């Protein structure tokens, strides 16, 4: 049978959610704790209760994910029903009379919590989530004072094979968030449910280690875990050791997405831009020089936009060009989409570019022995830890280009350990030669940002003129795949932006189909960031991320872009200087030696 072209859908009420039978009413009337409310049909009781200012306790439901109904804490009473259904997965139905709290409910919730605690180790004081743990918070709220049920913790050794994230199976509450985010949001399928009953664990299928699995170290599992079962590998002690070492010259870089999220760890709202305070705090921590990854982002744009011009205008190389700033995406591509290796930009990520320039350009200028330099980077990302030793090109300076990468959460911890009053520090400045940046560089932290920055500079490279309006609204926003067409000098460039690895598939399939048919590719330039929202929603960012938080963090970066006097990467005076003093021009021999890398196909399974 031949598939028919879908006809235009009948005009439906815009209020009706997709998939709802047209016969069902769009709005239902229910009572929650006696208060009448009208809500769209299909809303879960959990969401409906928020409308009457009730927050039903839950441990497993995450705003990014579908309900798994695993924890059993969100039970409610419905008049006429003997059982207590779970609010997270029960949709409201016309006439429902719902009670969200009562003596009986609290009793049973306590017993459920007691059972959860009875399989959880009591090592809160030495746990990576101490203070941010959702189970700990519930235990505190419910006033758990005694261990009524004897503890049975199945002893399964932890998995610390990756160096980026550590899984402690004993602390798992089996909510399944990590599995869902790994499979549905990221399409990586590194984690799955293994075994049954008390032996259940979230681990790579076949009981292999995480390092041997398809894991791309994106860290979304660690960001969505309610407890300390999956945490980043905390490397703050190593930074203190380096800072105390008199023989070492410690320099530091901070990534674009860190500055708009770190405030959340100190009680500020998401999106608060703390760039100036971060510079000061890092200097007071004892770093000899404070650089900004945004500078290297500008440099990445110079290289990547030049590469694009090379391929698009001069027809040298494969189209579409695919961005390579995201180490999780790079890892995923090498494992799964390795037929696109020739399409990948060979430009290194900004983190690695800054590292190599610190140990070559900066070291030479200041007469410092690069062997004594220690480059620390603060990233929103757990995969950046893996990127440090990804290939031989990560040692382009002759030494490891970046010595250690820490996440935003570790940076918050480092600041708290120092005792510095972070929020009341005066604003500082970054150090010259690797510190000045443009608004375009700042955008690297958000999905669509690399594309936007690259288009701004590509326009200049093609026309020799700067854009009058630099914003590309069509690549902004949180929808999974964004497509846009940009016309430069009468030529149309079609671009696609994807974030969340599961969204990559549809874009690449279109390119594959065109390639097989010998047609021109449907898009010329693809940007991919592994995490939903881009780096602002990175796996190493502060906890409690949802769509609203991502939007606010993104707005923080867009505002930062608007506030910069220079908003085009090629106009950055320090970028101009590094090319005239050191690198020559984009894609020069020296630039290739230091700023570019290569990729190897590493297929995991024969599919």
């Amino acid at each position, binding site marked *: 049978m031949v598939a028919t072209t879908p006809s235009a859908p009948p005009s439906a009420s815009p209020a009706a959610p997709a998939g709802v039978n047209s016969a069902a009413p769009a709005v239902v009337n229910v009572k929650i704790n006696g208060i009448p409310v009208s809500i769209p049909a299909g809303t879960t009781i959990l969401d409906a209760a928020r409308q009457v200012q009730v927050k039903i306790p839950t441990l497993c439901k995450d705003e990014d994910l579908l309900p798994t*109904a695993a924890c*059993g804490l969100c*039970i409610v009473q419905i008049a006429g029903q003997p*059982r*207590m259904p*779970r609010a997270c997965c029960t949709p409201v139905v016309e006439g429902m009379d719902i009670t969200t709290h009562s003596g*009986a409910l609290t*009793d*049973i919730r306590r*017993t*459920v919590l007691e*059972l959860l605690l009875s399989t959880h180790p009591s090592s809160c004081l030495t746990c990576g989530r101490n203070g941010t743990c959702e189970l700990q918070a519930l235990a505190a709220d419910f006033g758990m004072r005694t261990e*009524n*049920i*004897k503890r*049975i913790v199945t002893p399964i050794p932890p998995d610390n094979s990756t160096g980026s994230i550590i899984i402690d199976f004993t602390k798992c509450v089996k909510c399944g968030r990590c599995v869902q985010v790994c499979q549905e949001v990221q399409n990586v399928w590194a984690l799955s449910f293994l075994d049954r009953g008390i032996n259940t664990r979230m681990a790579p299928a076949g009981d292999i280690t995480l390092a041997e699995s398809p894991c791309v170290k994106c860290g979304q599992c660690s960001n969505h875990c309610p407890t300390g079962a999956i945490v980043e590998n905390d490397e703050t002690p190593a930074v203190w050791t380096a800072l105390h070492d008199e023989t070492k010259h410690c320099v530091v870089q901070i990534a674009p997405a860190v500055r708009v999220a770190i405030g959340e760890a100190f009680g500020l709202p998401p999106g608060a831009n703390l760039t100036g305070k971060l510079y000061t705090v890092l200097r007071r921590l004892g770093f000899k020089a404070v650089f900004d990854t945004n500078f290297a982002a500008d440099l990445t744009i110079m290289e990547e936009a030049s590469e694009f011009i090379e391929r698009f205008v001069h027809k040298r190389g494969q189209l579409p060009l695919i961005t390579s700033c995201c180490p999780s995406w790079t890892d995923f591509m090498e494992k799964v989409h390795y037929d696109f290796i020739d399409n990948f930009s060979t430009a290194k990520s900004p983190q690695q570019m800054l590292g190599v320039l610190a140990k070559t350009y900066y070291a030479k200028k200041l007469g410092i022995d690069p062997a004594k330099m220690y480059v620390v980077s603060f990233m929103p990302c757990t995969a950046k830890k893996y990127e440090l030793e990804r290939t031989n090109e990560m040692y382009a300076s002759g030494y490891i280009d970046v010595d250690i990468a820490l996440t935003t959460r570790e940076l918050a911890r480092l600041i708290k350990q120092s005792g510095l009053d972070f929020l009341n520090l005066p604003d500082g400045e970054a150090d010259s030669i690797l510190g000045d940046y443009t608004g375009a560089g700042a955008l690297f932290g958000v999905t669509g940002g690399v594309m936007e920055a690259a288009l701004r500079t590509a326009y200049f490279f093609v026309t020799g003129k700067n854009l009058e309006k630099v914003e590309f609204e069509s690549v902004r926003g949180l929808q999974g795949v964004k497509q846009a067409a940009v016309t430069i000098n009468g030529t149309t460039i079609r671009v696609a932006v994807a974030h969340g690895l599961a969204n990559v598939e549809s874009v690449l399939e279109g390119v594959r189909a065109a390639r097989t048919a010998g047609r021109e590719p449907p898009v010329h330039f693809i940007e991919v960031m592994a995490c939903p929202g881009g780096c602002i929603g990175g796996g190493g960012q502060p906890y409690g991320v949802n769509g609203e938080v991502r939007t606010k963090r993104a707005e923080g970066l867009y505002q930062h872009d608007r506030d910069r006097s220079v908003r085009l990467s090629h106009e950055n005076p320090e970028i101009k200087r590094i090319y005239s003093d050191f690198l020559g021009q984009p894609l020069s021999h020296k630039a290739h030696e230091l700023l570019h890398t290569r990729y190897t196909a590493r297929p995991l399974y024969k599919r």
Partner: protein
Amino acid sequence: MLQILNRVARGRGEKGDTERLRAISKAMQKASLCGLGQTAPNPVLSALRYFEPEFKAYLEGGVSYARKMNANRPPEASVAEPANV
């Protein structure tokens, strides 16, 4: 639940174990997702309903005391089965 039942049967039961069993059973009946979970505690609740004195004996005096208690009971009582099972 199995852990509590096992320790009671070994004569190592603790004070409050019958209440603990009842609380877990109730939570399972009310809050379980599936029919299996909702009915799984029924045998334990039946046992508590019909053999509460035996549970008490095991809890208060341990295995040997409980066996002695059982031996002293009239023979028909120890083998009698509830009519409704």
